[in-house]
Every structure is written in C-alpha cells, then in structure tokens.
C-alpha cells in the first residue's frame, strides 16, 4: 500500500546548529487519525507546518501522494506549492478565522486557491461550492449561523467553522495543530470526534497535534510520541503505558 504522506530525514533549525526537528522519518497511511504528542517546544507544531510549508524545512523530504502522483512538498515553490496547499486542509489552535468576515465567507475562503483575485473580490464563488458550504455547515451543526460574523461565535463554534473551512478544500489530507487547546474539555471531545468522523467519512488521513494524552488515546488510531525533536514512540493507544509516557515527557510525578 502506498502512503498518503512519507517524511524522510526531516530537519528544521530556526537557528543554525540548534535543530528543533532532528531527522524525522514517518509514513502516514491513506486513512485513520494519527495523533502527535510530546512536550511543549519539541517541534510538534513545526512538524505539522513543514507539511503544508507554513514553515520551510531545513533538510529532508516530504512525499505527498494524491491524485496518482507523488510530490516532494519540501521542494515546492510558488504556484506548485500553492496547488499542493489547496489539497491539504489545516485546522488551527486559535481557529484563525477571519474575524470580520461572515461564517459563510470564512468557509468559502477554503476555495480561494482555485479562484482569481477579481472573482474573489466580487465574491463570485462557484454555485456548487456555496451549496457544499451550506452542507458542511449542517454537518458541523452551524447551519443557522451562515451569515453571522465569525467574531460573534463561541470558541467551540469557531473551531467547527475552522474544520468546515478546511473540509471546504475537499482535501486528501487534513492537518490539525492543537485544535482543542483553547477549548473546554467537553467541546474538546466533540471537536476530536468531529475530526475523526469526518476523516473516516471521507476516507482521508488526519494528523492531529495534541497535548492531551487522554484525548489522543481515545480518538487516535495511531499515536506518535515526539521528544527532543525525534520520534520516540510510534504505535497504538493500548501500548502507550506509563513507561512510554515517561520516555516521551520525562519525569514521573505527573503520572502518579
């Protein structure tokens, strides 16, 4: 089976000689939710952002397979990079909605990669896209909020819009960078459930950075433990015992 994403020897250093990612090798299959856990500052966010190139990797390869071809995302530039970003949905920790636009405009901004500026300026979105946006809003339970401004929503509602915006891209790969860190526990469960279910329904892989181990165990098909810029655990939720967690996070008082 070919992988949706294959990362080889990925290195990222913001300052020369102090790499934050020290040669990551990972293969993500074509479906399932993969959770990346690890202590703060260990490069989880950097790893996710290297995939859609919001961060430029220092070395390594990121092979992305979709539509029958395989592309090394690490080497892309300009138009080719934007074309690949169109096929990678991303959900952010602080939702990153455009506050002063309506929920509908935020959703449809997921189609901007396919539009010229003149059409975007006049809000000339494809009719099929608009219909799909309403469908997605119903899916995430915000059907009645289409014309509300994003800054009028609660945190949980905003993150649902964030997920709908990413799904609007009809992406073969969905990334989520700490999608629940700004939410209360109940909403966190709902958001993780939504990410898992939407990934399953569309048959696409979902990669989620998360620092809540319990949430990861409950929703992930596979857990990757990152520590010190390296993969130190790669397996199922069942095998993630205290000894493994100590290895990932260090210390042990918090496990008692």
């Amino acid at each position: 089976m070919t992988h949706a994403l294959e990362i080889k020897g990925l290195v990222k250093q913001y300052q020369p000689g102090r790499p934050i990612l020290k040669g990551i090798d990972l293969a993500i299959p074509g479906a399932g939710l993969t959770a990346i856990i690890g202590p703060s500052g260990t490069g989880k966010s950097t790893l996710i952002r290297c995939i859609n190139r919001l961060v430029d990797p220092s070395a390594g390869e990121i092979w992305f397979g979709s539509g029958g071809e395989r592309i090394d995302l690490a080497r892309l530039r300009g138009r080719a990079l934007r074309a690949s970003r169109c096929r990678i949905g991303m959900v952010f920790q602080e939702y990153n909605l455009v506050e002063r636009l309506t929920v509908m405009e935020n959703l449809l901004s997921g189609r901007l990669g396919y539009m010229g500026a003149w059409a975007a300026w006049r809000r000339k979105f494809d009719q099929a896209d608009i219909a799909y946006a309403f469908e997605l809003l119903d899916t995430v339970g915000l059907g009645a909020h289409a014309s509300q401004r994003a800054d009028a929503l609660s945190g949980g509602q905003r993150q649902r819009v964030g997920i709908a915006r990413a799904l609007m891209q009809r992406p073969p790969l969905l990334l989520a960078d700490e999608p629940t860190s700004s939410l209360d526990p109940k909403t966190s469960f709902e958001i993780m459930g939504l990410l898992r279910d939407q990934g399953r329904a569309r048959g696409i892989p979902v990669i989620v950075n998360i620092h809540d181990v319990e949430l990861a165990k409950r929703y992930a098909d596979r857990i990757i433990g990152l520590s010190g810029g390296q993969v130190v655990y790669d397996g199922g939720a069942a095998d993630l015992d205290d000894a493994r967690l100590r290895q990932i996070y260090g210390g042990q008082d918090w496990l008692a």
Partner: protein
Amino acid sequence: MSAPARASSAFRTGPATRVALWLILAYALYAASQLGFSWTRFVEGLGHGARFLGRMFPPDLSHRDDLADGIAETLQIAVLASLAGIVLSLPIGLLGARNLMPGPVSWAARALVSVCRSLHPVIVAILFVKAVGFGPLAGVLALVVSSIGFIGKLFSEAIEEISHKQVEAIRATGASFMNVVLFGVLPQVLPRFVGFATYQLDSNLRNSTMVGIVGAGGVGGVLLSAFQRFDYAFVLTILLTIIAIIVVGELAANSVKKVFHV
C-alpha cells in the same frame, strides 16, 4: 535605605529629564527675546485687532456669485484630491507594509510616502502652480500628494498591526498573494481605512480653502483678494461659509463612519 527615602525615590525624575526641561524653558525665553516681542506691542496689537474685527461687521452678502464659484471649486478640489489620494494610497500603503513586502519594496514605498509628507500642502501647491500653471489642477495635485503622505503611512501602519494568524490560515488554503490580501488582510484593516479616508476628506476640505491663496484654485483666491481690497466684511462672510462647510463635512464623515461601524 530607610523606608521614607525609598518611597520618595519611587517617582523621582532622573537628572537628564530635569536638565532637558530647563534647556527647553531657556530656549523658549531666548527665542522670544530674539523675535522682538514686547508688552507694549502686544497691547497696541489688541487695539488694532479690535478695530479690524469691528470693520468685519456686518458681514457683506453682496458678492454671492464670487463666493459660490469659489466654494464650488474648493469642494471639487477636495473631493477629487481625496478620491485620487485614497485610491493611490491603498497600493502604496500595501507596498509599504513591512510584514507583507520584501525589505527593498517596503523601503521604497515608505520613502515615497515620507517625501510626500515632508512638505506642507501650500509649498507643494506653489511647486505645482509653477509646474502646471494657476488654477484648480495645481490644487488637486498638491492635495493628492499630501493625502498620499498622510494616509499612505497610516495604511502601512494599520497593515503592519494585523493578526498574522488570519493571514496564515488563508495562505494555508493555497490562496494566491492577492487573494490572501483580499480575504486575510483587507477585512482586518477596512474599518480603519474608512476612518483614515474620512479624516483625510475632512483635512482636504480645510486645505483646499488654503491652496487658493497661492493661486491653486478654490475659495482661497477669493479670500486673498478680499483681504487685499480691505473688504473685511466680505472676508467675514467667506470665513463663516468655510466654517459652515467644515462642520457639515465633519457631520457627513461621522455618518459615513457609523455606516461602516468604525
């Protein structure tokens, strides 16, 4: 250190601040002595002023045609200059934003804006009168330059203060740079832009009454010739009309801002 001494040290001004204050005061006294002010002159001046004001009343309403023509031209200058200035300032302000543009581009744009801002509109108007001749064209061009100098800078600064998170999210969808600007940047700055633009219209209204004094069109020319004829009653009529227009302009600007929820 004892407790009271510590308490008094909490808010003590540094010696540098005190020296600076004394220097400023000393310079002000020196400058006043150089310019030959005296109390007698001031008192005599008050008398002249009272006589001048007396000659203004009652306001002269007989040259209404001259006044109407001048005011109409002034309004046209202000509106045209504001429109052109705002339209040109948008791209220049965007180019000057250091968070979106590469260094050399934003440096060049900000240098252009600084040059536009460095000269007073009346001096720019004199330059344009020399270049394109007497008349409202010179006035419009002068006010376009000063508009760019003012709101171009404010636009750049507003763009530099936006939230990068929203921009990042639009970039992540694969949007082109222009689409990122349209959906990630503009919605964040639009209300402030409307505020700057109405402020600029207001200030262009005031400045357009002045460029006429140097022959660049508008009611300023009418005002200058009334002064030169010692026709102070007509001067008062012109001044009252200008004040009325500025007040109406400000009310209009406020209602525009309300529409855009600034």
